[in-house]
Protein backbone atom coordinates (compact mmCIF):
# COMPACT_ATOMS: atom_id res chain seq x y z
CA UNK A 1 0.00 0.00 0.00
CA UNK A 2 2.68 2.49 1.06
CA UNK A 3 4.90 1.26 -1.75
CA UNK A 4 2.11 1.80 -4.24
CA UNK A 5 1.39 5.27 -2.89
CA UNK A 6 5.00 6.37 -3.05
CA UNK A 7 5.36 4.97 -6.58
CA UNK A 8 2.19 6.75 -7.64
CA UNK A 9 3.39 10.00 -6.03
CA UNK A 10 6.74 9.71 -7.81
CA UNK A 11 4.95 9.20 -11.12
CA UNK A 12 2.80 12.27 -10.49
CA UNK A 13 5.86 14.39 -9.69
CA UNK A 14 7.59 13.12 -12.84
CA UNK A 15 4.56 14.10 -14.94
CA UNK A 16 4.61 17.63 -13.49
CA UNK A 17 8.37 17.80 -14.11
CA UNK A 18 7.85 16.64 -17.70
CA UNK A 19 5.28 19.41 -18.26
CA UNK A 20 7.46 22.13 -16.72
CA UNK A 21 10.36 20.90 -18.86
CA UNK A 22 8.15 20.97 -21.95
CA UNK A 23 7.20 24.58 -21.17
CA UNK A 24 10.89 25.48 -20.79
CA UNK A 25 11.83 23.78 -24.06
CA UNK A 26 8.92 25.33 -25.98
CA UNK A 27 9.76 28.78 -24.63
CA UNK A 28 13.41 28.46 -25.72
CA UNK A 29 12.34 27.11 -29.14
CA UNK A 30 10.09 30.13 -29.59
CA UNK A 31 13.09 32.47 -29.48
CA UNK A 32 15.06 34.61 -27.05
CA UNK A 33 12.90 34.84 -23.89
CA UNK A 34 14.06 38.43 -23.35
CA UNK A 35 12.55 39.34 -26.73
CA UNK A 36 9.24 37.53 -26.37
CA UNK A 37 8.69 38.07 -22.65
CA UNK A 38 9.39 41.81 -22.63
CA UNK A 39 7.56 44.41 -24.64
CA UNK A 40 9.32 46.17 -27.53
CA UNK A 41 9.60 49.50 -25.71
CA UNK A 42 11.61 47.98 -22.83
CA UNK A 43 14.75 50.13 -22.24
CA UNK A 44 18.10 48.32 -22.87
CA UNK A 45 19.21 48.49 -19.21
CA UNK A 46 15.98 46.83 -18.01
CA UNK A 47 16.43 44.22 -20.71
CA UNK A 48 20.00 43.57 -19.52
CA UNK A 49 18.81 43.31 -15.93
CA UNK A 50 16.14 40.82 -17.03
CA UNK A 51 18.71 38.69 -18.87
CA UNK A 52 20.87 38.62 -15.76
CA UNK A 53 17.90 37.87 -13.48
CA UNK A 54 16.87 34.80 -15.50
CA UNK A 55 20.46 33.78 -16.26
CA UNK A 56 19.92 34.09 -20.00
CA UNK A 57 23.67 34.67 -20.55
CA UNK A 58 24.58 31.35 -18.91
CA UNK A 59 24.62 27.80 -20.40
CA UNK A 60 21.26 26.20 -21.22
CA UNK A 61 21.56 23.53 -18.50
CA UNK A 62 22.08 26.22 -15.88
CA UNK A 63 19.14 28.20 -17.27
CA UNK A 64 17.01 25.08 -16.96
CA UNK A 65 17.95 24.53 -13.30
CA UNK A 66 17.35 28.20 -12.57
CA UNK A 67 13.96 27.90 -14.28
CA UNK A 68 13.04 24.82 -12.22
CA UNK A 69 14.09 26.57 -9.01
CA UNK A 70 11.86 29.58 -9.74
CA UNK A 71 8.98 27.33 -10.88
CA UNK A 72 9.09 25.52 -7.52
CA UNK A 73 8.79 28.91 -5.79
CA UNK A 74 5.88 29.80 -8.09
CA UNK A 75 7.93 32.58 -9.65
CA UNK A 76 7.23 32.94 -13.37
CA UNK A 77 8.02 36.64 -13.60
CA UNK A 78 5.78 39.68 -13.68
CA UNK A 79 2.58 40.07 -15.62
CA UNK A 80 2.57 42.70 -18.40
CA UNK A 81 -0.94 43.70 -17.56
CA UNK A 82 -0.41 45.00 -14.01
CA UNK A 83 3.26 44.39 -13.12
CA UNK A 84 2.44 42.02 -10.32
CA UNK A 85 3.76 38.44 -9.97
CA UNK A 86 2.07 36.22 -12.57
CA UNK A 87 1.37 33.57 -9.96
CA UNK A 88 -0.66 36.08 -7.89
CA UNK A 89 -3.00 36.58 -10.85
CA UNK A 90 -3.53 32.80 -10.99
CA UNK A 91 -4.18 32.35 -7.27
CA UNK A 92 -6.67 35.21 -7.41
CA UNK A 93 -8.59 33.64 -10.31
CA UNK A 94 -8.42 30.04 -9.10
CA UNK A 95 -11.21 30.17 -6.45
CA UNK A 96 -13.66 31.44 -9.10
CA UNK A 97 -12.87 28.53 -11.39
CA UNK A 98 -13.15 26.06 -8.51
CA UNK A 99 -16.55 27.54 -7.59
CA UNK A 100 -17.80 27.37 -11.19
CA UNK A 101 -16.34 23.91 -11.83
CA UNK A 102 -17.71 22.33 -8.66
CA UNK A 103 -21.18 23.80 -9.10
CA UNK A 104 -21.20 22.51 -12.70
CA UNK A 105 -20.11 19.08 -11.46
CA UNK A 106 -22.85 19.05 -8.80
CA UNK A 107 -25.46 20.03 -11.39
CA UNK A 108 -24.21 17.29 -13.72
CA UNK A 109 -24.36 14.69 -10.94
CA UNK A 110 -27.87 15.78 -9.94
CA UNK A 111 -29.16 15.45 -13.53
CA UNK A 112 -26.91 12.83 -15.09
CA UNK A 113 -26.87 10.12 -12.41
CA UNK A 114 -30.66 9.70 -11.99
CA UNK A 115 -31.13 9.91 -15.77
CA UNK A 116 -28.55 7.20 -16.42
CA UNK A 117 -29.78 4.86 -13.67
CA UNK A 118 -33.37 5.32 -14.83
CA UNK A 119 -32.35 4.51 -18.41
CA UNK A 120 -30.59 1.34 -17.24
CA UNK A 121 -33.63 0.19 -15.23
CA UNK A 122 -35.87 0.75 -18.26
CA UNK A 123 -33.28 -0.81 -20.58
CA UNK A 124 -34.32 -0.69 -24.25
CA UNK A 125 -37.71 0.77 -23.46
CA UNK A 126 -39.08 4.17 -24.42
CA UNK A 127 -37.79 5.92 -21.29
CA UNK A 128 -34.28 4.55 -21.96
CA UNK A 129 -34.30 5.75 -25.56
CA UNK A 130 -35.64 9.17 -24.61
CA UNK A 131 -33.10 9.60 -21.79
CA UNK A 132 -30.23 8.60 -24.08
CA UNK A 133 -31.44 10.89 -26.87
CA UNK A 134 -31.42 13.78 -24.40
CA UNK A 135 -27.97 12.73 -23.17
CA UNK A 136 -26.53 12.61 -26.70
CA UNK A 137 -27.93 16.07 -27.46
CA UNK A 138 -26.45 17.27 -24.17
CA UNK A 139 -22.92 16.07 -24.75
CA UNK A 140 -22.72 16.81 -28.47
CA UNK A 141 -23.65 20.51 -28.10
CA UNK A 142 -20.54 22.72 -28.11
CA UNK A 143 -20.32 24.74 -24.87
CA UNK A 144 -19.91 28.03 -26.72
CA UNK A 145 -23.09 27.40 -28.72
CA UNK A 146 -25.04 26.33 -25.63
CA UNK A 147 -23.79 29.43 -23.80
CA UNK A 148 -24.93 31.71 -26.62
CA UNK A 149 -28.37 30.06 -26.80
CA UNK A 150 -28.79 30.46 -23.01
CA UNK A 151 -27.77 34.13 -23.20
CA UNK A 152 -30.25 34.70 -26.04
CA UNK A 153 -33.08 33.06 -24.12
CA UNK A 154 -32.54 34.01 -20.48
CA UNK A 155 -30.57 37.27 -20.68
CA UNK A 156 -31.84 38.92 -23.86
CA UNK A 157 -35.38 37.54 -24.43
CA UNK A 158 -36.71 36.79 -20.95
CA UNK A 159 -34.32 39.18 -19.18
CA UNK A 160 -34.32 37.16 -15.95
CA UNK A 161 -30.60 36.35 -15.61
CA UNK A 162 -27.42 38.39 -16.07
CA UNK A 163 -25.25 37.40 -19.05
CA UNK A 164 -21.89 38.63 -17.77
CA UNK A 165 -20.02 39.39 -14.58
CA UNK A 166 -19.53 37.86 -11.15
CA UNK A 167 -21.18 40.25 -8.71
CA UNK A 168 -23.73 37.87 -7.26
CA UNK A 169 -24.63 34.18 -7.13
CA UNK A 170 -27.21 34.88 -9.85
CA UNK A 171 -24.25 35.48 -12.17
CA UNK A 172 -23.15 31.93 -11.48
CA UNK A 173 -26.34 30.32 -12.85
CA UNK A 174 -25.86 30.60 -16.63
CA UNK A 175 -22.14 29.64 -16.63
CA UNK A 176 -22.90 26.67 -14.36
CA UNK A 177 -25.69 25.41 -16.63
CA UNK A 178 -23.54 25.91 -19.74
CA UNK A 179 -20.63 23.98 -18.27
CA UNK A 180 -22.79 21.43 -16.44
CA UNK A 181 -25.29 20.27 -19.09
CA UNK A 182 -22.81 18.65 -21.53
CA UNK A 183 -21.17 17.01 -18.51
CA UNK A 184 -24.60 15.73 -17.38
CA UNK A 185 -25.06 14.16 -20.82
CA UNK A 186 -21.76 12.29 -20.66
CA UNK A 187 -22.44 11.31 -17.06
CA UNK A 188 -25.90 9.91 -17.90
CA UNK A 189 -24.45 7.74 -20.65
CA UNK A 190 -21.70 6.57 -18.37
CA UNK A 191 -24.07 5.89 -15.43
CA UNK A 192 -26.32 3.86 -17.71
CA UNK A 193 -23.47 1.63 -18.91
CA UNK A 194 -22.06 1.21 -15.39
CA UNK A 195 -25.48 0.36 -13.93
CA UNK A 196 -26.27 -2.11 -16.72
CA UNK A 197 -22.95 -3.80 -16.07
CA UNK A 198 -23.61 -4.10 -12.34
CA UNK A 199 -27.21 -5.25 -12.90
CA UNK A 200 -25.92 -8.21 -14.88
CA UNK A 201 -23.77 -9.42 -11.98
CA UNK A 202 -24.85 -12.62 -10.17
CA UNK A 203 -25.20 -10.96 -6.74
CA UNK A 204 -27.73 -8.50 -8.11
CA UNK A 205 -29.71 -11.26 -9.75
CA UNK A 206 -29.56 -13.13 -6.44
CA UNK A 207 -30.84 -10.10 -4.53
CA UNK A 208 -33.65 -9.70 -7.04
CA UNK A 209 -34.39 -13.39 -6.82
CA UNK A 210 -34.78 -13.05 -3.06
CA UNK A 211 -37.53 -10.56 -3.80
CA UNK A 212 -35.71 -7.33 -2.93
CA UNK A 213 -37.41 -4.39 -4.61
CA UNK A 214 -35.60 -3.14 -7.74
CA UNK A 215 -35.01 0.33 -6.28
CA UNK A 216 -33.59 -1.16 -3.07
CA UNK A 217 -31.28 -3.34 -5.16
CA UNK A 218 -30.02 -0.26 -6.92
CA UNK A 219 -29.47 1.76 -3.76
CA UNK A 220 -28.07 -1.02 -1.55
CA UNK A 221 -26.09 -3.09 -4.01
CA UNK A 222 -25.61 -1.54 -7.42
CA UNK A 223 -24.66 2.05 -6.51
CA UNK A 224 -21.85 1.23 -4.03
CA UNK A 225 -20.30 -1.02 -6.64
CA UNK A 226 -20.62 1.58 -9.35
CA UNK A 227 -18.82 4.12 -7.13
CA UNK A 228 -15.32 3.18 -8.30
CA UNK A 229 -15.89 3.61 -12.05
CA UNK A 230 -17.86 6.79 -11.29
CA UNK A 231 -14.90 8.18 -9.38
CA UNK A 232 -12.55 7.34 -12.26
CA UNK A 233 -14.95 9.03 -14.63
CA UNK A 234 -15.04 12.24 -12.56
CA UNK A 235 -11.23 12.21 -12.49
CA UNK A 236 -11.17 12.24 -16.28
CA UNK A 237 -13.95 14.83 -16.49
CA UNK A 238 -11.92 17.36 -14.48
CA UNK A 239 -9.94 17.91 -17.68
CA UNK A 240 -13.15 18.56 -19.62
CA UNK A 241 -14.37 20.97 -16.96
CA UNK A 242 -11.11 22.93 -17.04
CA UNK A 243 -11.06 23.05 -20.84
CA UNK A 244 -14.71 24.10 -20.89
CA UNK A 245 -14.01 26.80 -18.32
CA UNK A 246 -11.72 28.60 -20.77
CA UNK A 247 -14.64 29.07 -23.16
CA UNK A 248 -17.45 29.48 -20.63
CA UNK A 249 -15.57 32.01 -18.50
CA UNK A 250 -14.76 34.04 -21.60
CA UNK A 251 -18.40 34.09 -22.78
CA UNK A 252 -19.82 35.06 -19.38
CA UNK A 253 -16.91 37.32 -18.31
CA UNK A 254 -16.38 35.10 -15.25
CA UNK A 255 -12.98 36.04 -13.72
CA UNK A 256 -11.47 32.55 -13.51
CA UNK A 257 -8.29 30.80 -14.63
CA UNK A 258 -9.68 29.89 -18.07
CA UNK A 259 -10.47 33.49 -18.93
CA UNK A 260 -7.13 34.60 -17.49
CA UNK A 261 -5.38 32.17 -19.86
CA UNK A 262 -7.37 33.30 -22.91
CA UNK A 263 -6.75 36.98 -22.09
CA UNK A 264 -3.04 36.50 -21.49
CA UNK A 265 -2.68 34.47 -24.71
CA UNK A 266 -4.35 37.32 -26.63
CA UNK A 267 -1.95 39.88 -25.16
CA UNK A 268 0.97 37.39 -25.18
CA UNK A 269 1.48 37.91 -21.45
CA UNK A 270 3.77 34.89 -21.31
CA UNK A 271 4.56 34.98 -17.58
CA UNK A 272 0.86 34.51 -16.79
CA UNK A 273 0.48 31.85 -19.51
CA UNK A 274 3.28 29.80 -17.92
CA UNK A 275 1.87 30.22 -14.42
CA UNK A 276 -1.59 29.07 -15.60
CA UNK A 277 -0.40 26.03 -17.53
CA UNK A 278 1.82 24.79 -14.69
CA UNK A 279 -0.97 25.34 -12.14
CA UNK A 280 -3.48 23.49 -14.34
CA UNK A 281 -1.05 20.58 -14.76
CA UNK A 282 -0.57 20.34 -11.01
CA UNK A 283 -4.35 20.40 -10.47
CA UNK A 284 -4.94 17.68 -13.06
CA UNK A 285 -2.14 15.44 -11.81
CA UNK A 286 -3.20 16.05 -8.20
CA UNK A 287 -6.82 15.22 -9.01
CA UNK A 288 -5.83 11.95 -10.68
CA UNK A 289 -3.60 11.09 -7.73
CA UNK A 290 -6.47 11.78 -5.35
CA UNK A 291 -8.80 9.59 -7.44
CA UNK A 292 -6.29 6.73 -7.24
CA UNK A 293 -5.92 7.12 -3.47
CA UNK A 294 -9.68 7.21 -2.84
CA UNK A 295 -9.98 4.25 -5.20
CA UNK A 296 -7.67 2.21 -2.96
CA UNK A 297 -9.54 3.31 0.13
CA UNK A 298 -13.02 2.35 -1.10
CA UNK A 299 -12.10 -0.77 -3.04
CA UNK A 300 -11.01 -3.46 -0.57
CA UNK A 301 -9.63 -5.59 -3.41
CA UNK A 302 -6.86 -3.04 -3.90
CA UNK A 303 -5.82 -2.96 -0.26
CA UNK A 304 -2.53 -4.72 -0.92
CA UNK A 305 0.41 -4.11 -3.15
CA UNK A 306 -1.72 -4.52 -6.24
CA UNK A 307 -1.68 -1.67 -8.73
CA UNK A 308 -4.75 0.29 -9.68
CA UNK A 309 -6.46 -0.97 -12.79
CA UNK A 310 -6.18 1.07 -15.96
CA UNK A 311 -8.68 3.81 -16.41
CA UNK A 312 -11.53 3.41 -18.83
CA UNK A 313 -10.68 5.02 -22.13
Amino acid at each position, binding site marked *: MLRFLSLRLLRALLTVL*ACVTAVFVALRLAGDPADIMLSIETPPDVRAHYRELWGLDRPLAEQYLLYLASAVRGDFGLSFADDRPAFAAVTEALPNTVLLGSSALLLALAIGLPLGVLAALRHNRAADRLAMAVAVLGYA*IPVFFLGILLI*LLFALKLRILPSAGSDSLRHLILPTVTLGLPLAGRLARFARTATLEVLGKPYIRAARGRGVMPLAVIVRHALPNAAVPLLMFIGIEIGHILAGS*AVVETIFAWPGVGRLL*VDSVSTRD*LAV*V*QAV*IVTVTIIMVGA*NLLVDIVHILIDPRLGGFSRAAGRPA
Partner: protein
Amino acid sequence: MTTVDLPSVTAPAARPRTCAMSPVVKLSAGFLLVIVLVALLADWLAPLPYTAQNLAARLKPPLTEAGGTMHWLGTDQLGRDILSRMVFAIRSSILIAVMGTLIGAVVGTALGFAAARLRGVVDQAIMMAVDAQAAIPALFLALTMLAFFGNNIVLFIILVSVDGWDRYTRLARGLVVSEQESDYINAVEALGAGAPRVILRHLLPNIAAALVVQATLNFPGTILLETSLSFLGLGVQPPGTSLGLMLGEGRRYLLNAWWIAVFPGLAIFLTTLSMSLFGDWLRDRFDPTSERH
Protein backbone atom coordinates in the same frame (compact mmCIF):
# COMPACT_ATOMS: atom_id res chain seq x y z
CA MET B 1 -30.53 -9.16 -33.37
CA THR B 2 -32.19 -12.21 -34.88
CA THR B 3 -29.28 -14.63 -34.99
CA VAL B 4 -27.93 -16.36 -31.92
CA ASP B 5 -24.21 -15.98 -31.29
CA LEU B 6 -22.70 -19.40 -30.77
CA PRO B 7 -19.43 -19.53 -28.90
CA SER B 8 -16.76 -20.17 -31.47
CA VAL B 9 -13.02 -20.56 -31.11
CA THR B 10 -12.09 -18.46 -34.11
CA ALA B 11 -14.37 -15.46 -33.99
CA PRO B 12 -13.54 -13.22 -36.95
CA ALA B 13 -12.42 -9.84 -35.68
CA ALA B 14 -14.65 -7.67 -37.79
CA ARG B 15 -17.87 -9.63 -37.90
CA PRO B 16 -20.73 -7.18 -38.27
CA ARG B 17 -23.07 -7.40 -35.34
CA THR B 18 -25.59 -4.75 -36.23
CA CYS B 19 -25.68 -4.41 -39.96
CA ALA B 20 -28.74 -2.23 -40.35
CA MET B 21 -28.46 1.52 -39.83
CA SER B 22 -31.21 2.98 -37.68
CA PRO B 23 -33.04 5.96 -39.21
CA VAL B 24 -31.10 8.29 -36.90
CA VAL B 25 -27.76 6.90 -38.08
CA LYS B 26 -28.90 7.17 -41.72
CA LEU B 27 -29.86 10.80 -41.12
CA SER B 28 -26.46 11.48 -39.51
CA ALA B 29 -24.59 9.84 -42.38
CA GLY B 30 -26.69 11.83 -44.85
CA PHE B 31 -25.95 15.10 -43.07
CA LEU B 32 -22.22 14.34 -43.00
CA LEU B 33 -22.34 13.62 -46.73
CA VAL B 34 -24.01 16.99 -47.31
CA ILE B 35 -21.35 18.74 -45.19
CA VAL B 36 -18.55 17.06 -47.15
CA LEU B 37 -20.19 18.02 -50.47
CA VAL B 38 -20.60 21.62 -49.29
CA ALA B 39 -16.92 21.70 -48.32
CA LEU B 40 -15.86 20.30 -51.71
CA LEU B 41 -18.18 22.39 -53.87
CA ALA B 42 -18.02 25.65 -51.87
CA ASP B 43 -16.98 27.69 -54.92
CA TRP B 44 -20.07 26.66 -56.87
CA LEU B 45 -22.56 26.62 -54.00
CA ALA B 46 -21.96 30.01 -52.40
CA PRO B 47 -24.29 32.64 -53.88
CA LEU B 48 -21.74 35.43 -53.21
CA PRO B 49 -17.99 35.66 -52.46
CA TYR B 50 -17.60 35.30 -48.69
CA THR B 51 -15.78 38.61 -48.34
CA ALA B 52 -18.22 40.65 -50.47
CA GLN B 53 -19.46 43.55 -48.34
CA ASN B 54 -22.60 45.56 -48.81
CA LEU B 55 -22.65 48.26 -46.17
CA ALA B 56 -26.14 49.31 -47.24
CA ALA B 57 -27.44 45.89 -46.19
CA ARG B 58 -25.88 45.44 -42.75
CA LEU B 59 -27.38 43.17 -40.08
CA LYS B 60 -30.33 42.19 -42.28
CA PRO B 61 -32.44 39.29 -40.89
CA PRO B 62 -32.82 36.00 -42.79
CA LEU B 63 -34.91 36.01 -45.98
CA THR B 64 -34.15 39.66 -46.77
CA GLU B 65 -33.59 40.75 -50.34
CA ALA B 66 -31.00 43.47 -50.85
CA GLY B 67 -29.17 44.69 -53.93
CA GLY B 68 -30.88 42.10 -56.12
CA THR B 69 -29.71 39.11 -54.07
CA MET B 70 -31.67 37.04 -51.61
CA HIS B 71 -29.94 36.73 -48.22
CA TRP B 72 -31.43 33.40 -47.09
CA LEU B 73 -29.69 33.47 -43.70
CA GLY B 74 -29.33 37.25 -43.39
CA THR B 75 -26.21 39.43 -43.39
CA ASP B 76 -23.55 40.32 -40.80
CA GLN B 77 -22.22 43.62 -39.43
CA LEU B 78 -20.44 44.36 -42.73
CA GLY B 79 -23.36 43.32 -44.92
CA ARG B 80 -21.74 40.04 -45.91
CA ASP B 81 -24.04 37.15 -46.85
CA ILE B 82 -24.19 34.67 -43.92
CA LEU B 83 -25.02 31.69 -46.15
CA SER B 84 -22.03 32.33 -48.43
CA ARG B 85 -19.73 32.82 -45.45
CA MET B 86 -21.02 29.62 -43.84
CA VAL B 87 -20.35 27.58 -46.98
CA PHE B 88 -16.70 28.67 -46.94
CA ALA B 89 -16.49 28.41 -43.15
CA ILE B 90 -17.64 24.79 -43.40
CA ARG B 91 -14.91 24.19 -45.98
CA SER B 92 -12.11 25.60 -43.80
CA SER B 93 -13.37 24.05 -40.54
CA ILE B 94 -13.75 20.60 -42.11
CA LEU B 95 -10.41 20.87 -43.93
CA ILE B 96 -8.55 21.84 -40.75
CA ALA B 97 -10.29 19.13 -38.71
CA VAL B 98 -9.58 16.44 -41.35
CA MET B 99 -5.91 17.44 -41.57
CA GLY B 100 -5.65 17.60 -37.79
CA THR B 101 -7.24 14.17 -37.43
CA LEU B 102 -4.95 12.67 -40.09
CA ILE B 103 -1.78 14.13 -38.54
CA GLY B 104 -2.84 13.04 -35.05
CA ALA B 105 -3.76 9.54 -36.24
CA VAL B 106 -0.58 8.97 -38.26
CA VAL B 107 1.82 10.37 -35.66
CA GLY B 108 -0.03 8.75 -32.75
CA THR B 109 -0.21 5.35 -34.46
CA ALA B 110 3.46 5.50 -35.48
CA LEU B 111 4.46 6.24 -31.89
CA GLY B 112 2.26 3.36 -30.69
CA PHE B 113 3.99 0.99 -33.11
CA ALA B 114 7.40 2.29 -32.04
CA ALA B 115 6.55 1.74 -28.37
CA ALA B 116 5.20 -1.76 -28.97
CA ARG B 117 7.97 -2.96 -31.31
CA LEU B 118 11.01 -1.39 -29.65
CA ARG B 119 9.89 -1.68 -25.98
CA GLY B 120 12.44 -0.71 -23.31
CA VAL B 121 13.44 2.93 -22.95
CA VAL B 122 11.59 4.05 -26.09
CA ASP B 123 8.37 2.50 -24.80
CA GLN B 124 8.84 4.16 -21.40
CA ALA B 125 9.57 7.57 -22.92
CA ILE B 126 6.60 7.44 -25.30
CA MET B 127 4.18 6.30 -22.63
CA MET B 128 5.45 9.04 -20.34
CA ALA B 129 4.68 11.60 -23.04
CA VAL B 130 1.21 10.03 -23.40
CA ASP B 131 0.64 10.41 -19.65
CA ALA B 132 1.86 14.01 -19.73
CA GLN B 133 -0.46 14.80 -22.67
CA ALA B 134 -3.40 13.22 -20.84
CA ALA B 135 -2.63 15.51 -17.87
CA ILE B 136 -3.14 18.74 -19.85
CA PRO B 137 -6.40 19.53 -21.66
CA ALA B 138 -5.68 19.85 -25.40
CA LEU B 139 -7.27 23.32 -25.48
CA PHE B 140 -4.89 24.60 -22.78
CA LEU B 141 -1.86 23.12 -24.50
CA ALA B 142 -2.90 24.67 -27.81
CA LEU B 143 -3.48 28.08 -26.17
CA THR B 144 -0.03 27.97 -24.54
CA MET B 145 1.71 27.12 -27.80
CA LEU B 146 -0.18 29.89 -29.64
CA ALA B 147 1.01 32.34 -26.97
CA PHE B 148 4.63 31.22 -27.30
CA PHE B 149 4.91 30.94 -31.08
CA GLY B 150 2.29 33.38 -32.31
CA ASN B 151 -0.49 32.39 -34.67
CA ASN B 152 0.10 30.91 -38.11
CA ILE B 153 -1.97 28.42 -40.04
CA VAL B 154 0.62 25.59 -40.11
CA LEU B 155 1.15 25.71 -36.35
CA PHE B 156 -2.61 25.94 -35.87
CA ILE B 157 -3.26 22.74 -37.86
CA ILE B 158 -0.53 20.92 -35.93
CA LEU B 159 -2.06 22.11 -32.65
CA VAL B 160 -5.51 20.91 -33.69
CA SER B 161 -3.97 17.45 -34.23
CA VAL B 162 -2.83 17.47 -30.60
CA ASP B 163 -6.32 16.48 -29.51
CA GLY B 164 -6.17 12.71 -29.33
CA TRP B 165 -2.74 11.60 -30.63
CA ASP B 166 -2.18 9.99 -27.22
CA ARG B 167 -5.34 7.91 -27.68
CA TYR B 168 -4.07 6.46 -30.99
CA THR B 169 -0.70 5.74 -29.36
CA ARG B 170 -2.29 3.93 -26.43
CA LEU B 171 -4.66 2.01 -28.70
CA ALA B 172 -2.06 1.04 -31.33
CA ARG B 173 0.48 0.04 -28.69
CA GLY B 174 -2.02 -2.20 -26.87
CA LEU B 175 -3.26 -3.84 -30.07
CA VAL B 176 0.21 -4.40 -31.51
CA VAL B 177 1.54 -5.85 -28.24
CA SER B 178 -1.25 -8.43 -28.14
CA GLU B 179 -1.23 -9.05 -31.91
CA GLN B 180 2.52 -9.68 -31.93
CA GLU B 181 2.03 -12.73 -29.74
CA SER B 182 -0.38 -14.33 -32.20
CA ASP B 183 0.54 -17.36 -34.27
CA TYR B 184 0.27 -15.76 -37.68
CA ILE B 185 2.79 -13.03 -36.82
CA ASN B 186 5.17 -15.65 -35.38
CA ALA B 187 4.75 -17.68 -38.56
CA VAL B 188 5.35 -14.70 -40.84
CA GLU B 189 8.45 -13.73 -38.87
CA ALA B 190 9.72 -17.32 -38.87
CA LEU B 191 9.41 -17.28 -42.67
CA GLY B 192 11.86 -14.38 -42.67
CA ALA B 193 9.66 -11.33 -43.17
CA GLY B 194 11.38 -8.10 -42.15
CA ALA B 195 9.94 -5.54 -39.75
CA PRO B 196 8.51 -3.21 -42.46
CA ARG B 197 6.67 -6.11 -44.08
CA VAL B 198 5.32 -7.40 -40.77
CA ILE B 199 4.14 -3.90 -39.78
CA LEU B 200 2.67 -2.72 -43.07
CA ARG B 201 1.32 -5.95 -44.54
CA HIS B 202 0.21 -7.79 -41.43
CA LEU B 203 -0.06 -5.74 -38.24
CA LEU B 204 -1.51 -2.53 -39.67
CA PRO B 205 -4.32 -4.12 -41.73
CA ASN B 206 -5.37 -6.18 -38.71
CA ILE B 207 -5.73 -3.24 -36.35
CA ALA B 208 -6.90 -0.73 -38.98
CA ALA B 209 -10.60 -1.14 -38.15
CA ALA B 210 -10.07 -0.13 -34.52
CA LEU B 211 -7.93 2.86 -35.58
CA VAL B 212 -10.54 4.08 -38.06
CA VAL B 213 -13.24 3.81 -35.40
CA GLN B 214 -11.01 5.77 -33.02
CA ALA B 215 -10.48 8.45 -35.68
CA THR B 216 -14.24 8.76 -36.20
CA LEU B 217 -14.89 9.07 -32.47
CA ASN B 218 -12.08 11.60 -32.21
CA PHE B 219 -13.22 13.80 -35.08
CA PRO B 220 -15.91 15.74 -33.15
CA GLY B 221 -13.32 16.63 -30.49
CA THR B 222 -10.97 17.90 -33.20
CA ILE B 223 -13.70 20.06 -34.77
CA LEU B 224 -14.54 21.42 -31.33
CA LEU B 225 -10.89 22.26 -30.63
CA GLU B 226 -10.62 24.21 -33.90
CA THR B 227 -13.96 25.99 -33.46
CA SER B 228 -13.26 26.78 -29.78
CA LEU B 229 -9.88 28.36 -30.59
CA SER B 230 -11.35 30.32 -33.51
CA PHE B 231 -14.32 31.31 -31.36
CA LEU B 232 -11.89 32.73 -28.78
CA GLY B 233 -10.28 34.74 -31.60
CA LEU B 234 -7.05 32.75 -31.37
CA GLY B 235 -7.50 30.32 -34.26
CA VAL B 236 -8.35 31.10 -37.88
CA GLN B 237 -7.82 34.85 -38.42
CA PRO B 238 -9.82 37.20 -40.67
CA PRO B 239 -10.01 37.52 -43.65
CA GLY B 240 -10.05 33.72 -43.41
CA THR B 241 -13.20 32.20 -42.03
CA SER B 242 -14.27 29.31 -39.85
CA LEU B 243 -17.51 28.32 -38.17
CA GLY B 244 -15.99 29.13 -34.77
CA LEU B 245 -14.78 32.54 -35.95
CA MET B 246 -18.26 33.41 -37.31
CA LEU B 247 -19.82 32.42 -34.00
CA GLY B 248 -17.24 34.45 -32.07
CA GLU B 249 -17.89 37.54 -34.22
CA GLY B 250 -21.65 37.06 -33.99
CA ARG B 251 -21.48 36.92 -30.20
CA ARG B 252 -21.07 40.71 -30.14
CA TYR B 253 -24.28 41.26 -32.10
CA LEU B 254 -26.57 38.85 -30.23
CA LEU B 255 -28.96 41.57 -29.11
CA ASN B 256 -29.74 42.86 -32.62
CA ALA B 257 -28.74 40.04 -34.96
CA TRP B 258 -29.02 36.55 -33.45
CA TRP B 259 -28.65 34.92 -36.88
CA ILE B 260 -24.94 35.77 -37.23
CA ALA B 261 -24.06 33.45 -34.34
CA VAL B 262 -26.91 30.93 -34.35
CA PHE B 263 -26.60 29.47 -37.88
CA PRO B 264 -22.84 28.70 -37.71
CA GLY B 265 -23.37 27.35 -34.16
CA LEU B 266 -26.12 25.08 -35.43
CA ALA B 267 -23.84 23.83 -38.22
CA ILE B 268 -21.09 22.92 -35.70
CA PHE B 269 -23.62 21.27 -33.38
CA LEU B 270 -25.24 19.14 -36.10
CA THR B 271 -21.84 18.12 -37.48
CA THR B 272 -20.45 16.97 -34.11
CA LEU B 273 -23.78 15.31 -33.26
CA SER B 274 -23.94 13.40 -36.57
CA MET B 275 -20.31 12.39 -36.26
CA SER B 276 -20.82 11.09 -32.71
CA LEU B 277 -23.88 9.06 -33.71
CA PHE B 278 -22.17 7.71 -36.82
CA GLY B 279 -19.00 6.92 -34.85
CA ASP B 280 -20.99 5.02 -32.20
CA TRP B 281 -22.63 2.96 -34.91
CA LEU B 282 -19.29 2.29 -36.58
CA ARG B 283 -17.79 1.18 -33.27
CA ASP B 284 -20.68 -1.20 -32.56
CA ARG B 285 -20.34 -2.63 -36.02
CA PHE B 286 -16.59 -3.00 -36.41
CA ASP B 287 -14.84 -2.87 -33.07
CA PRO B 288 -15.00 -6.27 -31.39
CA THR B 289 -13.54 -4.92 -28.15
CA SER B 290 -16.31 -2.41 -27.53
CA GLU B 291 -19.20 -3.19 -25.24
CA ARG B 292 -22.68 -3.14 -26.58
CA HIS B 293 -25.85 -2.41 -24.70
